[in-house]
């Protein structure tokens, strides 16, 4: 495969005895907890975010179970409110924001640009500790009774009225935010200063571009939410009037400050997923990503424009009409770079040699779900149509299409794509494909009915809906779908863990992919990633679809003739 790209690539024999790699270099617990190796830190993050994903998933299961009946079944309203708050907070702050950057990004960025590690290995480890401390504080807040103000923490409910563990939770989120800033600083420094010889900006995989854009958002946006959360804690603890009119503050100010971060945060969650899709589409189409520069610059455009659209969360919040219309206009503009990406990923298959492996099925699922998620965003960025839909289940469905249909699908696709690189072994391709299809089907059954519920007027965060029992049918459908979705999410846990023990040895490049992480590093990579720093002499995504398809056909013919 494309040997022109790397001069010093070392082909490896299948080892008789396990060779030294980053996993077996040292076995002590201390060597894991004090590691500076970006790959080990990625594995630590993988364990952490998987834990948080299933914790948030349990909360989601309670919500869906509760909504099968207009009068609820298991919980009282207080507990229900704590459930959806826990679900939102855990999934957003402790899974989505960290999942792709801190796991796959940490593991892959140095490998992809030909560096031995990230620029600041100890900062990288510190980011994991800060993340875990934040997570621990939030879990303590849950054990002490949880929080009931939703993940948006609207004031003055969160600052003066809620009787729950808001302060502790805010401190936890504050810390998680700093973890994200540390990771962002590390990525930017690494991408700027540590690219291998010949790795020019436009030879970087699009995955690296998307992380570059993400990191810029993270370091510019996260401090704002950190300050905002701190101000809520101050108002709560010391009754300093900032957001509460009773103390002389302004509740809408909170919404501006919160969404100034939390809208760009959507792109922190989404852009890395888009990077994953670029890599997968290219590898399994055996073609370069169509319109490389358009895809690269669209990430940067999203990062820039993403900071100018926060007001579209506040069309009916008492901001001025003129302000709302300007935010609406910019929100339409930010849709364009997303649209261009979808078209370019699809066109990547043009004249390619398409292989339907597990990561590819996840990526194709992403394209479908993200398209629906993106287009339903039009209803909400259009200031007129937003009036009736904001705050309803339409919003819930929309952002789950983007966040689960987009980010989680991409995370799972990426995890399946780079799993053999991370752990050196292949998982069951059969079960992989089944899980991708189950997730796709279960997802649509869960969230499509919620679009209809939202248009019918069902407000989000409602525990009881006895006032409108006609909504029950869609809620039951959604809960049934979520059961399928849950099974889909559980399946990879089993076959991926099994692959660690008994999966076939993957070899350095099981997919025949291009890129330094495949062509110049072993699977799993050694602690210092490469034997010598690779030198890049050719373009990125140097695939040959014609050769791939022809050789595949020859193999098939040989099988038949035998």
């Amino acid at each position, binding site marked *: 495969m494309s040997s022109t790209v790397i001069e010093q690539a070392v082909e490896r024999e299948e080892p008789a005895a396990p060779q030294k790699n980053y996993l077996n270099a040292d076995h002590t617990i201390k060597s894991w907890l004090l590691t500076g190796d970006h790959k080990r830190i990625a594995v630590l993050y993988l364990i952490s975010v998987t834990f948080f994903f299933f914790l948030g998933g349990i909360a989601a299961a309670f919500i869906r179970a509760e909504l099968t009946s207009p009068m609820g079944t298991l919980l009282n309203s207080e507990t229900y409110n704590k459930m959806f708050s826990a679900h939102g907070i855990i999934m957003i702050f402790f899974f989505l924001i960290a999942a792709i950057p801190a796991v796959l990004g940490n593991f892959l960025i140095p490998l992809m640009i030909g560096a031995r590690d990230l620029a600041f290995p100890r900062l990288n480890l510190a980011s994991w500790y800060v993340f875990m401390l934040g997570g621990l504080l939030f879990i303590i807040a849950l054990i002490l009774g949880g929080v009931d103000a939703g993940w948006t923490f609207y004031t003055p409910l969160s600052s003066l009225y809620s*009787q729950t563990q808001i302060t502790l939770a805010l401190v936890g989120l504050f810390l998680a935010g700093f973890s994200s800033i540390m990771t962002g600083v590390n990525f930017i420094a690494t991408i700027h200063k540590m690219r291998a010889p010949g790795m020019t900006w436009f030879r970087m995989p699009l995955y690296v571009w998307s992380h570059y854009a993400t990191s810029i958002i993270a370091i510019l946006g996260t401090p704002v939410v950190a300050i905002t959360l701190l101000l809520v804690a101050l108002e709560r603890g010391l009754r300093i009037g900032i957001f509460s009119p009773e103390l002389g503050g302004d509740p809408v100010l909170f919404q501006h400050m919160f969404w100034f971060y939390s809208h760009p945060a959507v792109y922190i969650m989404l852009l890395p997923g888009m990077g994953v899709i670029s890599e997968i589409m290219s590898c399994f189409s055996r073609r370069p990503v169509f319109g490389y520069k358009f895809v690269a610059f669209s990430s940067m455009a999203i990062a820039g424009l993403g900071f100018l659209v926060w007001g579209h969360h506040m069309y009916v919040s008492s901001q001025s009409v003129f302000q709302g219309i300007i935010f609406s206009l910019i929100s339409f503009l930010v849709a364009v770079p997303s649209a261009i990406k979808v078209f370019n990923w699809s066109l990547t298959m043009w004249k*390619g040699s398409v292989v339907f492996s597990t990561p590819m099925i996840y990526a194709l699922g992403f394209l479908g779900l993200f398209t629906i998620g993106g287009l339903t965003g039009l209803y909400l960025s259009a200031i*007129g149509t937003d009036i009736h839909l904001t705050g309803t289940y339409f919003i819930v469905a929309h952002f789950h299409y983007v966040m689960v249909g987009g980010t989680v699908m991409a995370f799972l696709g990426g995890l399946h794509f780079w799993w053999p690189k991370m752990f050196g072994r292949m998982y069951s391709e059969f079960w992989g494909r089944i899980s991708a299809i189950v997730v796709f089907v279960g997802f649509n059954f869960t969230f499509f009915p919620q679009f209809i519920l939202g248009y019918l007027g069902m407000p989000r965060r409602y*525990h009881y809906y006895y006032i409108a029992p006609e909504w029950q049918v869609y809620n039951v459908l959604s809960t049934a779908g979520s059961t399928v979705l849950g099974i889909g999410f559980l399946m990879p846990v089993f076959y991926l863990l099994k692959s660690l023990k008994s999966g076939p040895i993957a070899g350095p490049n099981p997919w025949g992919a291009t890129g330094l992480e495949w062509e110049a590093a072993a699977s799993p990579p050694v602690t210092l990633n490469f034997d010598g720093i690779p030198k890049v002499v050719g373009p990125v995504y140097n695939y040959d679809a014609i050769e791939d398809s022809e050789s595949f056909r020859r193999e098939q013919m040989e099988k038949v003739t035998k």
Partner: protein
Amino acid sequence: MNFPIMPPQASEFAPKYDAIFWATSGLTVIFTAMVAILIVILAGKYKRGSKADRSNPSSHNTTLEMLLMGVPTVLGMIIFVWSAVLFIEARTMPKNAQEIFVIGKRWMWHAQHMNGVRENNEITVPLGKPVKLTMISQDVVHAMYLPDFRAQYHVVPGRYTQLHFTATKPGTYKMFCNIHCGTQHSEMVGYVHVLPQAEFDAWMANGGNRYLKTNLTMAEAGKQIWDDKGCGNCHQTLDNERAPSVVGIYGSTRKLTDGTTVEANEDYLRESILRPWNKLTTGYERTMQAYEGVLSEEQVLNLIAYMKSLGQGGTSPDKGIYQQPVKTGRDFPVGRKDPVDIANERASGGASQAHDLRNNP
């Protein structure tokens, strides 16, 4: 089984809204189908090993990219302008509107008409006439959401916000709080009643069918305050997760959160109205508003008289006019049904088994 796909269109704004909603839906379906077809065709045609022509591939085409950016931009701008015009219409308050004032508080809605008629969790409006709601919150941020009118706006503490609509169909429509406001957020719901003008005028003229009697006894005056303030919204016939019942409360022994007990005499009841957080009944949170400075001493006396009339020492009188009215004063004109009962009937599948859902959450 019934699969509704559209909420009723009950305002002048609703059909205009639905036009753009379904136009956007059309675009969504077309574009989703385009992407899906593109993916299926490309993935199918260029499946590994297929005999498709793969010669002279290209991985960029600036003209195509411009086209792929241009077409969505133009379509997007059409939707943007259309929706902005609609929004301006929704946010421009008509000059000749009937004014109604709404206060949102956890977890109920107070409405007041210009002539002083008050309603709780209900707003009665005339048919075919523009109505303007001027709203403020007494505590946290709420949102007034009327899906059947396609109308929504936040109700914010510390500032007035406004909302207008013109109802086009007589009937009863749902009203929601649509910003999470705490424990009973999902029960901060109510109804908008649309009456033909003549019926509405009659309803207004007799004070919302409420204050028909003069020379009230103390207990009756207390019941009026009870209804005006919406006390029955939380304090219902039975104890519930919102608040304890006041039926038979006078003279009973109350267990407090700090473990002590106290007899519910006049002093206790007065303190619990004016400063409810001082002596909380066990099992309840500090959710009730303090009425100190809100109610006069005379009003408090009347309220206590009303509570006494509901029974004493833990028992309720077995007969008399006060057996039912502990819930909010839902006094409906003849021929209109209590919407809670309508919801109950729908939920239980028939009037025969109807029971009060609100009291048994």
